[in-house]
């Protein structure tokens, strides 16, 4: 894979795996709601490569859309995937062109604050993680990023596609502790979908992390997963092959995203 292809994959992960975490942030963070206030607000991110996604915020609810059809109030266009990556990672130079909403600069300032808040939740300081509620919210956000990341890599990365070609179809439900912290990913003939919460239907495999600490270790590739399963810290019920295949893809996410954001 050349550098340009790698940057494109990173951009996919930022736009289609990290940005959707804003939806969860809005659910759990009063600060996020305060930043936006009561006026509806929306912002789209577009790369010259064609990648695009947007956030629509209204009545206290944030909705993420991939390839949005509806026009957002604000839009930023980037001349390359690398520039989007620089914006989200904070590394390198990024100079997006405001192509919509440039007469309402407060919108861009609002997004900037939201993005800082998201970063605090995705890349928290050690002290913040001492707070149990914050820690669990952090891990829940990471799970969402991970499963949406599996969707992107699973469809667009050669190694992931190769593994999933021999992984059985099905739905994997992931749960951290209890069903209030859950997300799922489905695989059907090479196509993936992901969602938050409990899957409406019968999953083919259920992966349950005993607690947020175990989940965090697994999501950050910093846990002996085999030992954790043996000890009962991670329970896998149902299709082991499906869990294994998706797990492989999940482990590849840090190759494209810095570790703190990757999981």
């Amino acid at each position: 894979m050349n550098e340009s292809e790698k940057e494109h994959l990173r951009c996919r992960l930022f736009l289609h795996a990290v940005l959707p975490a804003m939806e969860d942030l809005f659910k759990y963070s009063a600060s996020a709601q305060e930043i936006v206030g009561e006026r509806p607000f929306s912002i789209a991110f577009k790369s010259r490569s064609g990648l695009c996604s947007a956030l629509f915020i209204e009545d206290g609810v944030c909705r993420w859309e991939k390839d949005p059809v509806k026009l957002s109030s604000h839009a930023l266009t980037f001349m390359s995937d690398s520039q989007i990556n620089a914006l989200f990672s904070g590394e390198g130079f990024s100079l997006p062109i405001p192509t919509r909403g440039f007469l309402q600069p407060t919108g861009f300032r609002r997004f900037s604050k939201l993005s800082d808040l998201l970063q605090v939740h995705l890349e928290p300081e050690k002290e913040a993680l001492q707070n149990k509620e914050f820690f669990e919210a952090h891990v829940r956000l990471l799970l969402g990023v991970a499963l949406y990341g599996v969707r992107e890599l699973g469809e667009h990365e050669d190694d992931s596609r190769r593994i999933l070609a021999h992984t059985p179809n099905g739905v994997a439900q992931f749960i951290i502790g209890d069903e209030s912290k859950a997300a799922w990913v489905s695989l059907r003939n090479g196509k993936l979908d992901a969602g938050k919460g409990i899957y409406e239907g019968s999953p083919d495999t259920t992966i349950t992390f005993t607690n947020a600490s175990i989940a965090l270790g697994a999501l950050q590739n910093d846990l002996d997963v085999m030992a954790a399963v043996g000890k009962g810290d991670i329970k896998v019920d149902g299709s082991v092959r499906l869990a294994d295949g998706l797990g492989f893809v999940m482990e590849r996410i840090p190759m494209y995203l810095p570790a703190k954001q990757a999981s």
Partner: protein
Amino acid sequence: MSDKFSKSLELFHRAAEVVPGGIYGHMSPVTTLPGRSPYYAARAKGCRYEDVDGNEYIDFLCGYGPIVLGYQHPEIEEAAEKQRREGDCFNHPTERMVELAEMLTERVDFADWAVFGKNGGDVTTWALQVAREKTGRKKVLKLRGSYHGVDPWCTPGHAGLIDEDRAHIHEFSWNDLQEFHDLVYQFEDEVAAVIITPFHHPAFGDSEMPAEGFLSSIESTCRERGIILILDDIRAGFRLSTGGSHQVFGFTPDMICFCKAIGNGYPISAAMGTNQLKVAASRVFLTGSYWNSAVPMAVAKKCIQILERDQVIDHIDKIGKLLFQGLRELGQKYNRPIKASGPPAVPFATFEGDENFRFMQKFCAGMMEQGVYLHPHHNWFISAAHQEADIKETLQKADLVLKDLV
């Protein structure tokens, strides 16, 4: 986690501190029923074994295949002890090596020579090298989902691999002659070897017997194209025939690999081949610290003698059929149809419509509670030590478990 396995779990917690994975490989609890099955064995005899918690099981996994005569078979142990008194690991091989090679070449019809290793993967990987040496070609065709060991070219794991490890390994599906031929034609004169199993026995899936003409057609194509046909008979070998499973399925490979049942649990593997490959084989470096150990070779000789003397192959086929029949009847009784797959001596049974194995996992967990070890995701094995009474007991327990589950 069940209290029934508390010592196993306690040991595992200790292990997890000093062993990556706790237990790694095919014996990892990940592949069976974590928390609902034993993790560590203590002792065994016949067709039964005891875990570290003192739970006893009728064993249908046989150490994942090696135990073909039964645990602690007195004649096997006597042969081992007799050789042990003389010595096991020396600076040189012993006469046992020559005797065993002669014994095997007398029985495996096409083969003129034998080499020995410890594990199946030692000899499958070596066999590929022999094929490459002989043909001067690089490519290897293998069956999708088949297991040949843990070397990079074939490991079922994903970690630590690079693209180059498998650049010349190409897969085709079991019973799909079209896909096989497409690969052969695609790579024309680049294929060194085709490695196959006598029947398909993937993990997490039903076993599949060969369709008519599948194996013989592969053989014909290999002959036409100068491709070396390697039979991985590690799982089925010495359970279907003492002369190689190809004799049962009506084809002839150029090389064959054995392990598991050849030594009734003592570590030994073998690769055999035709005279046409002997010079190439002699050039491919093959060795390991323990590969010429005398005790497993003495045991293998005795094992083969007993297999033939006691007509073990007929016995395990008969016992396997009883198990299949009984399970099918129970499946019908409880309206959970059971699919029996593979040859009776190497049986597997799954429930129809249970593609994600959830019901199978519950069934096997229930059977373990009842004292019968059935793997939910891997084919089973029958040994000479299994008797009709053991099958009857197994089926009685299966009846109880299914009644409870349904």
